[in-house]
């Protein structure tokens, strides 16, 4: 313990003032660098984006104030609705990662030899970059020679180019995204299962609870913290989905796999995109959608904080 640290000479007034006030000032000194960076790079840009969304700006020349025009245009833009629809599909289907992760976690929550290695290998996809995941699945889905195509052909379903077919493309990308996301949820649940109180399980067993009832009434309630985090990271993951779309389809075919985050990038910075204001408006909409969820999370966290005190 470092309590033996010398307090030092106390004769100076200045130092006395510091001593008297240091507990009030210290937190702000500790916070300053982090808060400064966070304000500069995260908080201000949010408002700046909102501001830019009222301009017509190609990112290189002068910007012109156009008021609500970007938003008016947005609500009359087919591509926007396609993106929005895909975002909803992403949100809904991505949620499958939560129960799927739980199932795998239950499957793996055993003490046989080598189980630790199995757990690591199941978790593996999460560690890989989404770029690599995208390339792996692009290969998996490739028409003519992809593994999946071969399997489907073997089942007599013919040659389907998943990533070039507007009916399947979004689902194909989501499946690729689920792969690492399920791994993430699995690891959350494995940790959660480790901490389920054994007494309650025993008690329930004595009451004759069968596996499924036990899972539903005893285990899942105890896994609530893990579920909360799994849901939060899955929602965020679904709304941020960008990498896989960029790598696997670039939004195609003819824009049918776009989501808002991708459409925003496309409008503002891609090869043919010069519309910073319009892109910012899309981002603001995405932000508002996310705000619904963020408010929910924060609400819960505030309640938890109150509960602690």
């Amino acid at each position: 313990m470092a309590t033996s640290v010398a307090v030092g000479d106390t004769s100076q007034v200045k130092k006395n003032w510091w001593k008297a006030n240091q507990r009030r000032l210290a937190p702000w000194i500790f916070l300053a660098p982090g808060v400064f960076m966070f304000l500069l790079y995260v908080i201000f840009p949010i408002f700046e984006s909102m501001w830019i969304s009222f301009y017509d700006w190609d990112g290189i020349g002068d910007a012109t104030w156009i008021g609500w025009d970007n938003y008016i245009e947005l609500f009359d833009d087919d591509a926007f609705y396609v993106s929005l629809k895909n975002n909803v599909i992403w949100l809904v289907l991505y949620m499958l990662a939560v129960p799927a992760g739980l199932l795998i976690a239950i499957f793996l929550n055993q003490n046989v030899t080598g189980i630790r290695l199995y757990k690591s290998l199941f978790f593996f996809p999460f560690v890989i970059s989404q770029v690599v995941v995208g390339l792996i699945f692009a290969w998996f889905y490739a028409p003519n020679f992809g593994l999946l195509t071969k399997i489907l052909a073997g089942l007599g379903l013919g040659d389907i180019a998943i990533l070039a077919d507007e009916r399947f493309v979004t689902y194909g990308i989501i499946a690729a995204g689920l792969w690492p996301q399920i791994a993430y949820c699995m690891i959350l649940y494995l940790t959660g299962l480790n901490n389920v109180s054994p007494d309650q399980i025993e008690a329930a067993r004595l009451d004759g609870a069968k596996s499924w009832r036990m899972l539903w009434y005893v285990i899942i309630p105890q896994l609530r913290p893990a579920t909360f985090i799994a849901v939060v990271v899955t929602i965020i993951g679904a709304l941020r989905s960008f990498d896989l779309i960029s790598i696997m389809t670039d939004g195609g075919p003819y824009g049918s796999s776009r989501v808002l985050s991708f459409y925003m990038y496309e409008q503002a910075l891609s090869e043919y995109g010069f519309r910073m204001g319009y892109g910012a408006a899309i981002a603001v909409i995405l932000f508002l959608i996310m705000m619904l969820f963020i408010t929910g999370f924060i609400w819960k966290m505030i309640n938890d904080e109150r509960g602690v005190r």
Partner: protein
Amino acid sequence: MKRYLAGTASALAVMSWLAGSALAGTIVINADTSDPAPKQAMEEVIAGFKEAHPDVEVELNIFDHEGYKTSIRNFLTADAPDIALWYAGNRMAPYVNAGLFEDVSDVWADNSLDETLKSAAASMTMDGKKWGVPYTYYQWGIYYRKDIFAELGIEPPKTWDEFLAACATIKEAGKAPIAIGTKALWPTGGWFDYLNLRVNGYEFHMELTGGEVPYTDDRVKAVFERWAELVEPGYFVQNHAALDWQDALPLLVQGEAAMYLIGNFAVAPLREAGLTDDQLGFMQFPEITPGIPMAEDAPTDTMHIPANAKNKEDAKKFLAYLAQADVQSKINATLGQLPVNNQSDVPEDAFLGAGFDMLSNAYALAQFYDRDAVAEMAKAGMEGFQEFMVKPDRADAILERLEKIRGRAHK
């Protein structure tokens, strides 16, 4: 290893130049020449220029070809080189309008380029000024398998009916008549350009890509009707939306497809993959509306001086050098493309010879859909073309959507 070293060398160049150490008498060139032939051509030009101007140093930064298209706007504003490679036509408009390209009319005047680079003068002019120097262009047209045509007894079609008949014959023989990969969208632009140029002619095509005519015009619908005559019977390869243009090359090489509407840059990889000049042929896109003068797509590549360049004086020397007849002969011999300077020699090559003859007799030259149309329209347009090639029954809905976007893009 070579490529890796080049990357490192250019990285060092960028870093030293970011550090502000650009000396007087140094010009920095940003280029998208990541493919082998263009890269070599670029290096040769620079070597030649250094010989002619020993007092000027040249630094070359090579970017990935596709990545360059998005990088350019950043470096033009942030840390501009002295020379940037780009494309003619509307593709340069955003930078000209934003004042990011330097007016180089004086280079044209001093070297009487209006004479020697006449064919590309119009596509380099905006607001009555010249904004860059063109150094190469290439033809588009139909590359086809001569041996398959001979086997099936098909003559290269000259008219639309002959073309349809040829497609039908090839399809019956169990092959795909036309190879294409539309994943990157732009290959669809070639089809639209040619169909529109042949159905409605050059003037209408330029009015349309210039945003002056609605996409819901009956003449545009007529283009889609012709196009549907190819899409509906399945004359294009299957799953083209999953393929890049390079992915479609093996189909031609393996004889699974017989024709490919593409630029002359496809010849090199086709030869490399084993097609001989006895197997590969080139033909002009057939006539559709009789009597309409034949115009062609011939995209032009250019070099520009960014407005924020540090050494404009030497950069202008470089552009003047680049415009010389002998220099353009040499670059294009390496590139396997056509020189813009009309005093230059056309490289000795069957396909370039054919292309040169075709373009010399052309009524007019269009750049390409994504260079003639403004960026927003180009993207939406080619997306619409791709959708049409998958779902031809949506033609009307697609055209209405394009019209909506035209209304916005040309306010």
